[in-house]
């Protein structure tokens, strides 16, 4: 029994945090967000060099061959530093989809390119996943028509992967004929969404999975765990910033952190947030190793982190007083990140509903 990160996972975490603390000071984050493309070549190259893009891709395809728990550790770091750029969909979900539903040849063709950072794949669903918006795509032969309004990880996307209603993923280049991929000016400027319209767009359909819907669900759940881990990191960052601010900021002749109101607010947030880390770790570990627990834990991790994240975001901002409301402090990058994660791949209400279904507590 050892419920903890491995030494390797701790090293991954330390390495990423070191890299990001060094390369992504607030000014840099601000500049990339202002540019609005959701992709910065220099930062991306650095992250690829950290092994981020190939994290869960097998070594034979040029990746590090790690698992979902490792990816969750990385996602928490990315959330903590509000990193502009793709990860949850582009790296984790797309790689998983290829591994689950691609032929060996398709995997050999695409996975190395994902691992090298050359191919970046926005991901969308043409069937209900618990989020609002238009999501309807039809396949005729190998051509796609329809629209996915909010594909995830639009930043720097070279391709888009759409899960069809059958569960099969279909891959299309964003610059192909018949594809109109519009990068949205999104609430979270660090990770803009992609509005994808398809009119007879040529696509590669990945059909090698025995059970396409089950494979899709595994990808979806892994994505949910990534968003939960991202929110965990973002919320932890906001709490840490609020604690630091409360120690330094003096009002009425005392650090505001010595006032019981501020103190108890922060104690409440810490009490709610800290156990979330174990939940995210468990959910991530379950995707790799505990099939019976995988679904419920992914759904509950997503739902719970969405709720805790929002509460942390609100109160950590409040602790900062007026400064929290300014752009100067930059706290809003995390606020918007948390809010965005909440709305994607299943809102908390929908995830909880699905968790009840999955456990057979209600019938659909």
């Amino acid at each position, binding site marked *: 029994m050892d419920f903890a990160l491995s030494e390797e996972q701790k090293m991954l975490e330390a390495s990423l945090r070191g890299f990001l603390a060094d390369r992504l000071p607030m000014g840099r984050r601000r500049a990339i967000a202002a540019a609005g493309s959701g992709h910065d070549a220099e930062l991306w190259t650095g992250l690829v060099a950290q092994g981020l893009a190939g994290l869960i891709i097998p070594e034979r395809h040029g990746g590090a061959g790690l698992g979902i728990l490792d990816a969750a550790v990385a996602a928490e770091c990315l959330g903590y530093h509000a990193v502009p750029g793709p990860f949850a969909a582009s790296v984790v979900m797309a790689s998983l989809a290829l591994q689950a539903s691609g032929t060996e040849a398709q995997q050999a063709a695409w996975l190395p390119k994902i691992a090298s950072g050359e191919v970046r794949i926005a991901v969308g669903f043409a069937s209900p996943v618990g989020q*609002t918006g238009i999501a309807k795509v039809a396949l005729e032969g190998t051509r796609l028509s329809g629209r996915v309004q909010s594909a995830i990880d639009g930043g720097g996307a070279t391709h888009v992967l759409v899960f069809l209603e059958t569960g099969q993923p279909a891959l299309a280049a964003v610059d192909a004929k018949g594809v109109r991929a519009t990068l949205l000016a999104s609430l979270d400027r660090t990770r803009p969404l992609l*509005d994808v319209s398809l009119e007879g767009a040529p696509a590669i359909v990945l059909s090698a999975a025995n059970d396409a819907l089950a494979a899709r669900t595994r990808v979806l759940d892994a994505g949910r765990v990534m968003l939960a881990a991202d929110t965990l990191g973002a919320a932890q960052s906001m709490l840490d910033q609020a604690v630091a601010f409360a120690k330094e900021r003096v009002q009425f*002749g005392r650090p505001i952190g010595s006032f019981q*109101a501020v103190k108890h607010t922060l104690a409440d947030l810490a009490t709610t947030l800290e156990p979330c880390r174990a939940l995210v770790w468990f959910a991530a570990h379950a995707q790799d190793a505990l099939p019976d627990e995988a679904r419920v834990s992914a759904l509950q991790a997503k739902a719970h982190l969405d709720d805790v994240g929002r509460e942390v975001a609100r109160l950590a*901002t*409040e602790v900062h007083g*007026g400064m929290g*409301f300014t752009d100067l402090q930059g*706290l809003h990058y995390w606020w918007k990140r948390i809010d965005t994660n909440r709305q*994607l791949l299943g809102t908390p209400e929908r995830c909880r509903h699905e968790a009840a279904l999955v456990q057979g507590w209600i019938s659909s």
Partner: protein
Amino acid sequence: MELAYSEQYRALQGEVRAFIAKYGHLSPKPGGGRQRPSKKALDWQKLLLEHGYFARNIPAEYGGFGLPLDVLELAVIAEEIAKGGVYPGIMNQGISMLVPTLLEVGTKEQCAQWIERTIRGEVIWCQGYSEPESGSDLAAARTKADVVDGHFVINGQKIWTSSAHYSDMMFLLCRTEPDQPKHKGLSYLLVPMNAPGIEVRPLVTMTGRATFNETFFTNVRVPTDQIVMGRGEGWHVANVTLKYERLLLGDANRLSARLARIRELMERTNLDGQRVMDIPEYRDRLMRLQGEVMASKYHGLRLLTEQARGEDSGLKRLIVKYNGTLLGYRLSSLAVDVLGAAGLAYDAKDEAAETDEATAWHIDNMYDIGLMIGGGSTNIQKNIIAERGLGLPREPKTAPATRS
């Protein structure tokens, strides 16, 4: 318990309706941005003032309508103007805060000099209270003014000066008596914004918009008679001003309107192939909020009644702002959730920002957080509710106290 208006007020209703029927076409569009009033707005303001639908209780000698205060009259006028869809008149910090402050503690000369031009919208004021290092602790203001040959010479920095970039004047809280204890060293000055040495820089907020400013003072000179009350009495004057800010009623109508918009949004938004209204987990949130909005609305009527009778509402009034801002935030949070993924497209920089439904709700949601922070933070409001409303003891002074 009588929810209808008596004859006297029904008569006023009729008058206002007739006024709107006759002149309504001259009204500018209600709402609108933070900018100097247009010619159209100034003309409309003049009409409102002439009919007593604005500044109704301000003495006629200062440009008002000179009637004694009757809050029911004010409520009737506000309701009819809202129903008629016309512009309710210019609202800014000069009108809501400075004018009542001058009436209470200003000299006759100051009243004569400023009030009429302020309520006519000709002189625009901004508020110079908060500083980067003194947010909730306003009395810690460090912007200083030294007296040099008949002038205050001002140096320092103010923040959250919302309309500073188009204002004519600022009412400024600054330190003129550095040797006095904290609360006794402040003065309340009236400063022309075109004085040399004032620099206004836009302050971008988390919404991405620059609706506030920072204002910097470098050797700004103001004659020593541009002061309200005396030197060292600034804290008293500022509290008079803040009292008028806190007197503003939480606007329950705004909350009801917001609830109705969310209801409508839930009826037309689809999630997983269902109307969001048909998803019970979302609907229950709406219904909870409806209950709270109703409580808030009827509480407002209760306060209005007490105010009309000249009763002191005590606790009942003190809770309004905190209750309203928290409720507003929870409403906009529900709206943001109903919009969901399809509502994540956001561009607040564009002039059209407020016409995009999703962007507007997200701005509201962030602004609601700002409201909880601004104008006395939530924690300070809770102290006031507990101490003045419930009579709980103040926190004891701390041992290594800064002299104050």
